[in-house]
């Protein structure tokens, strides 16, 4: 009986997550196809999917591993530009768009994962806030590297340069990546459907991980590092695993994002973007995946909805953030929410509560 309850607790989270995403998809896709969604909202669909993937993956690092990462956009950036380059390499092939996008996402994920390893290996064994500092630096470094990176593809293969486009020596082809101008001429092959599929993939990875031996080890390290060590858990290994998986997913999100625009520059993935994603995670709840999805969607739409307030838009946005933050952290409001929840709770919760009472005796 206990076991069954134990299982049902996380299947409930799973159902909530997958259900929410699928429901939104089923409602929005026909609307989009019928052209019933306003142009500005339709343009936000892929970015929202991207940011949900970003926030859910960051929650793995921040919520479950308990490490602060301030450079999540850096991994997104690595994924975005490596994805763009991968697709440029496939330009002259007849592969359908979705295979190109898939290749971009996979390449983006792998390279972001490698970046995650490079950043993680030296710092993740250290205690304290080193990871926050190093990821912050990483985000800035990546931005600056890509800002002066020139890449082109022609029939002789890939060409790289750190100084100018001319130096690439391209034979009848124009550069893909032009330093501060960023990438141009990107085929817009991301679709809402591909975005939803990537969210589902991310949820599959993250939710499975959480409910597994690996996930328990990661959560244990967060809760009490010394105790986790004392029961034989290799701290570095599991921290690195979670961190790299989080980076891979961010890279995939980056590739999806880039393929939604015809051009994109490195400054899009700066510190502000990292912080934005962190805000989604904090407001959605550390370690709370359904909450993260909801918070990301609402907060991403908010500036859009506030557009009519023109100049006061960001001011209102900030006020809303503060109010939400205060509200979700206030004991009194939590108690109130609990009361409401209890009123609507199902029978099983009541028996559960009774069980708790008995247990304390």
């Amino acid at each position, binding site marked *: 009986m206990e076991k069954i309850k134990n299982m049902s607790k996380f299947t409930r989270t799973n159902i909530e997550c997958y259900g929410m995403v699928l429901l939104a998809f089923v409602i929005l896709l026909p609307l989009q196809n019928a052209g019933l969604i306003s142009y500005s909202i339709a343009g936000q669909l892929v970015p929202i999917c991207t940011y949900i993937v970003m926030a859910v993956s960051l929650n793995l690092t921040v919520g479950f591993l308990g490490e602060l990462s301030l450079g999540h956009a850096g991994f997104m950036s690595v994924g975005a530009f490596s994805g763009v380059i991968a697709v440029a390499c496939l330009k002259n092939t007849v592969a359908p768009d979705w295979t190109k996008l898939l290749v971009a996402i996979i390449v983006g994920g792998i390279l972001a994962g490698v970046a995650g390893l490079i950043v993680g290996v030296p710092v993740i064994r250290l205690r304290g806030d080193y990871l926050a500092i190093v990821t912050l630096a990483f985000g800035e470094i990546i931005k600056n590297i890509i800002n002066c990176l020139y890449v082109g593809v022609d029939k002789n293969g890939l060409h790289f340069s750190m100084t100018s486009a001319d130096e690439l020596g391209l034979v009848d082809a124009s550069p893909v990546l032009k330093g501060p101008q960023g990438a141009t001429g990107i085929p817009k092959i991301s679709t809402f459907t591909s975005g939803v599929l990537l969210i589902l993939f991310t949820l599959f990875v993250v939710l499975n*991980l959480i409910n597994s*031996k*690996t996930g*328990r080890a990661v959560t*244990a390290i967060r809760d009490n590092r010394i*105790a986790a060590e004392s029961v*034989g858990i290799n701290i570095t290994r599991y921290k690195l695993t979670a961190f790299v998986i989080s980076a891979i997913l961010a890279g995939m999100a980056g590739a999806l994002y880039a393929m939604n625009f015809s051009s994109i520059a490195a400054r899009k993935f700066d510190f502000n973007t990292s912080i934005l994603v962190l805000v989604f995670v904090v407001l959605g709840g550390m370690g709370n995946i359904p909450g993260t999805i909801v918070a990301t969607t609402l907060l991403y739409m908010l500036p859009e909805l506030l557009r009519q307030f023109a100049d006061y838009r960001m001011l209102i946005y900030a006020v809303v953030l503060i109010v939400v933050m205060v509200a979700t952290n206030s004991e009194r409001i939590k108690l109130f929410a609990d009361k409401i929840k209890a009123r609507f709770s199902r029978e099983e919760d009541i028996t559960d509560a009774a069980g708790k009472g008995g247990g304390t005796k």
Partner: protein
Amino acid sequence: MSKDKMVPVPSNAIVPERDINKIPILETHHLGIDFGGLKAVDEFSITVGRTEISGLIGPNGAGKTTVFNLLTNVYQPTRGTILLDGKSTAKKSTAQINKMGIARTFQNIRLFSNMSVIDNVRVGLHNSTNQSLAASLTRLFGYKTSERKSLEEAMELLSFFHMDDMANRQAGSLPYGAQRRLEIARALATRPGIILLDEPAAGMNPSETAELMENIRRIRDNFNIAVMLIEHDMNLVMNICEGICVLDHGKVIAKGSPDEIRSNPKVIEAYLGKKKGGVEGGEE
């Protein structure tokens, strides 16, 4: 050398009769650590039998917890060697030492307080759960089997401590006594050869303490392992420990059976001389 191991050299017959012909589970030779100028532990040499319940006692600040931290390499020893099951633990990490066979609890309870009770124990089963990262990520490759096995084993351990009905509660929300039991269950889940308990009876009432004593004996008898405990409750120590080692200011001042310790003038002086430090439960 092998004769050394058969006979409990540094102790006066600390190793119980039944363990004398087996190599000891734990031996330390001249173990010591300095914190700055302070010799927190010095010349600490003991031998613990395979199925022995032993006690480490001494006034506050004597260095008892430090000994546990040395044994599990939370602190690197400045001097001396530790042999676990005949093998040196030098240069091993805390996690590796746990895999070699030492499990422990902490003086100030360290649970994974945001996780459920059963998951705390399942984390203890980590190294005996056969589940690859691929299985974790995909729920394939034997995921179901390994999860079920770890659930069942964890439930078994919980029921050993009569905690089955608390399995799904959050560990941090348990009453104090249950938290202590959970910490022991989690340590046992790692299948140690010796379990170190740091003040397991602290904060317990007499009936809980009596239950704890019973549990400690059951742990030894069921799992066939050695138990070493730090405790200020003299009644408990004198009742269940077969061998006792007394520390004062980082040095071993006495070793022996409960009767020997009780009548040892040095021990009496160490305790009475520091009446303020106090021995709860007293010797009476």
